[in-house]
C-alpha cells in the first residue's frame, strides 16, 4: 500500500478552488426561487464562502473538538491469507515499521480532537504488546478505541484487560460455516477462531462487534452471519467489498450504486497512519492526484505540523467532493449508524 511520490502533482492549483466554490454555490442557488434575488443571494453566498476560505482568524485550529478519527494501520502483515485482501501480500520490512513511541506521541498530541482511535491492518494483534500500550494510553487520554482483528490471537488475558479499558473489539467474519470460512480466510482457522469469539463474547459482552464484507462471493454467507450474531447477541455491521489490491473478489453492487447513495464522503475527518508512519487523510488517498504523496511521517515530524500544512488543507477541501466507492466503508459512516 505504499504511495507513489509525484511531486509535480502535489501543488494545489486554482481548479481546486473553483471545484470547492461550485460545490457550495450550485446547491444554494437552486434554493433561490425568485429570479430577482438570484444575483444578490449568490453574491452574498460567495462572500460567505470567501470568508470561510480566506479569513484568517486569531483563534487557530485546535479547540479540542472531538471531530477526528485517528486510524492506525499498525501492520500490513497478517496470519490469514484472505483472497479478498491484498494487504497481507505486502508486509512492511521490519526496519520500516514505525516505533510505537512515535504513534503514542501522535495520539497524545491529537487526543483533544479525537472521538476515536482505530487500529487496523493487516492483523493488529501480531503486535499485541503495542496494541495494549495504545489501549492503555487511549484510556488515560479518554479516547475510545476500536481494534479490528481476525480474532486468531485474542486470549483470555488480553480480553480481560481490554474489557477493563472499555474499548471495542471488532472481529471480521464473512461466514459461519467451516468450509466457507477456511476458503475466505485462506487458512484453516475456523476451529481456532470460533471458540475465541465465544470467549470474547463472554468476557467483552457489548464491547464485542462483528463485521462482514459483502461481495458476490460472500453474499450467500452474510445473512447466515447476521443470524448467527443475532442468536448470540453480538452487534453486527456489513461493509461493502473494496478493492485493496487482491482483485480475487468482486463487488455485488455496481460502482454507480456505491457512489450514488446520496451521501458525500466524510473521510476528511480521518487521520490515517500507515505502518511506516506515513500520514494520509484516507487510505484511498492515492485516488486524488494532489494526495499521491503522503502528507508527512510521524516518525520524522510532529502530527499537528503535518496537518497544518497548506497541502493538507487543500487535500481536505478536495475530499469534500470525493465520490469514490470507498466512501461506502465504515470509516466514512457516522458511528451511530454502524452496528445497528
Amino acid at each position, binding site marked *: 500500500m505504499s504511495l507513489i511520490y509525484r511531486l509535480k502533482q502535489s501543488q494545489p492549483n486554482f481548479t481546486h478552488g473553483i471545484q470547492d466554490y461550485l460545490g457550495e454555490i450550485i*446547491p*444554494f442557488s437552486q*434554493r*433561490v*426561487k425568485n429570479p430577482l*434575488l438570484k444575483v*444578490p*443571494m449568490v453574491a*452574498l*453566498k460567495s*462572500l*460567505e464562502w470567501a*470568508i*470561510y*476560505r480566506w*479569513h484568517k*482568524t*486569531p*483563534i*487557530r*485550529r*485546535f*479547540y*479540542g*473538538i*472531538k*471531530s*477526528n478519527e485517528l486510524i492506525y494501520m499498525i501492520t500490513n502483515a497478517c496470519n490469514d491469507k484472505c483472497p479478498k485482501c491484498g494487504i497481507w501480500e505486502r508486509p512492511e520490512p521490519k526496519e520500516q515499521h514505525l516505533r510505537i513511541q512515535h504513534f503514542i506521541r501522535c495520539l497524545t498530541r491529537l487526543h483533544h*480532537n479525537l*472521538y476515536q482511535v482505530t487500529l487496523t491492518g493487516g492483523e493488529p494483534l501480531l503486535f499485541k504488546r503495542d496494541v495494549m500500550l495504545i489501549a492503555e494510553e487511549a484510556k488515560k487520554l479518554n479516547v475510545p478505541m476500536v481494534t479490528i482483528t481476525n480474532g486468531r490471537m485474542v486470549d483470555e488475558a488480553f480480553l480481560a484487560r481490554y474489557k477493563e479499558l472499555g474499548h471495542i473489539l471488532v472481529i471480521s467474519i464473512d461466514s459461519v460455516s467451516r468450509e466457507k470460512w477456511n476458503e475466505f480466510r485462506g487458512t484453516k482457522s475456523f476451529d481456532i477462531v470460533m471458540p475465541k469469539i465465544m470467549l470474547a463474547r463472554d468476557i467483552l459482552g457489548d464491547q464485542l462487534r462483528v463485521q462482514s464484507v459483502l461481495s458476490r462471493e460472500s453474499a450467500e454467507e452474510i445473512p447466515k452471519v447476521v443470524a448467527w450474531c443475532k442468536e448470540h447477541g453480538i452487534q453486527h455491521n456489513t461493509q461493502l467489498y473494496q478493492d485493496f489490491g487482491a482483485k480475487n473478489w468482486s463487488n455485488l453492487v455496481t460502482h454507480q450504486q456505491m457512489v450514488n*447513495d*446520496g*451521501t*458525500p*464522503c*466524510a473521510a*476528511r*475527518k480521518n487521520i490515517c497512519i500507515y505502518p511506516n508512519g506515513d500520514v494520509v*487523510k484516507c487510505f484511498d488517498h492515492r485516488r486524488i492526484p494532489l494526495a499521491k504523496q503522503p502528507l508527512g511521517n510521524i516518525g520524522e515530524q510532529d502530527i499537528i505540523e503535518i*496537518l*497544518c*500544512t497548506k497541502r*493538507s*488543507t487543500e*487535500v*481536505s*477541501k478536495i475530499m*469534500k467532493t470525493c465520490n469514490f466507492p470507498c466512501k461506502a466503508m465504515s470509516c466514512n459512516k*457516522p*458511528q*451511530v449508524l454502524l452496528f445497528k
Partner: protein
Amino acid sequence: MSALIIPCYIRTEWDLSCLRRLLDSVFAQTKPFEKVYVVDDASPLKYDIGQFAIEHVVLDRNGGPARARNVAINKALQAGYAHLLFTDHDCILDREWNTRMVAFLDSSDFAAVGGMTYSWGKTLLDRYHDLNGTLAGKWLLPDRKELWYMPSLNFGLKAFAAEEFPFDERFPTAAGEDVDLCLRLRSKYRIGFCPEAKLWHDYGYKNSFTSFPRFLKLFQKYKSSSATLYEGHTVLMWDSSESIYEGNIR
C-alpha cells in the same frame, strides 16, 4: 416540567431591549415554563430585568455562553426539571414554542430537539439567512430524519442528556460551542427536528447597506470557531449534512 435557559452578555441598550422583548414572548407562552434562568455573563451594562418569576444569575467574570449555560444547567438538573430548553437574548419565541418543544421531547426517543428559526428582520441580509439556513440547524443526510446539528438558540435537551453532555467551556464566544455539543451528543443520542417550534432571531440589521459590515463580521466570527474546517481538521460528518430552510423543512 421544562426550564428555559437564556445566557446573555448585555453590552448596549439594543441588547437590553432584545432581552426584554424575549422575556415578553417568554411570558406570553400558551404553556408557561416552570422555570426561567437568565444567566448574565458579567455584562458591562448593568440593568434590572424586573421579572420576579425569573432566576437572574449574574456571573462575576465573563466566561462565554458555554459556561453561562452550564451554570444554569446545573441548577436546573438539581431542581429536577425533565427538559432543558435554550434560547438567546436576541430571539423572539412563538407562543406555542414551549408547548411544541416539550411535546416533541415527551413523545419521541430523541434526546434533543431543535426548532425552526426564522429571521426577525426584513432586509435582504435577513432573507439570505433564511435561505442559507444560517441558524436553522442541519439535516443529517441522506435520510433527513434527524439533525446533524442544531444551534443553541432554538434547542432543547432531555435532562439525562444535559447531565451527560454539558457545553465545553473552552469555547470563548458564542460560536462553535453548540456544534461541539451536538457532535458529542450524537455519539450516543439523536437530535430531532420540530418545525412547529418556531422562533425568530434578530440579526440586528437596520438595512441591507449600512448593516453589511455586521453581516461580514457574523461569518468571520463563525469562521473563527470553525477554523478547523479549512485547516485540515474537518468537523465530524460536516459533509453529510444540509442546512435547513423553508424548502426542505419536511
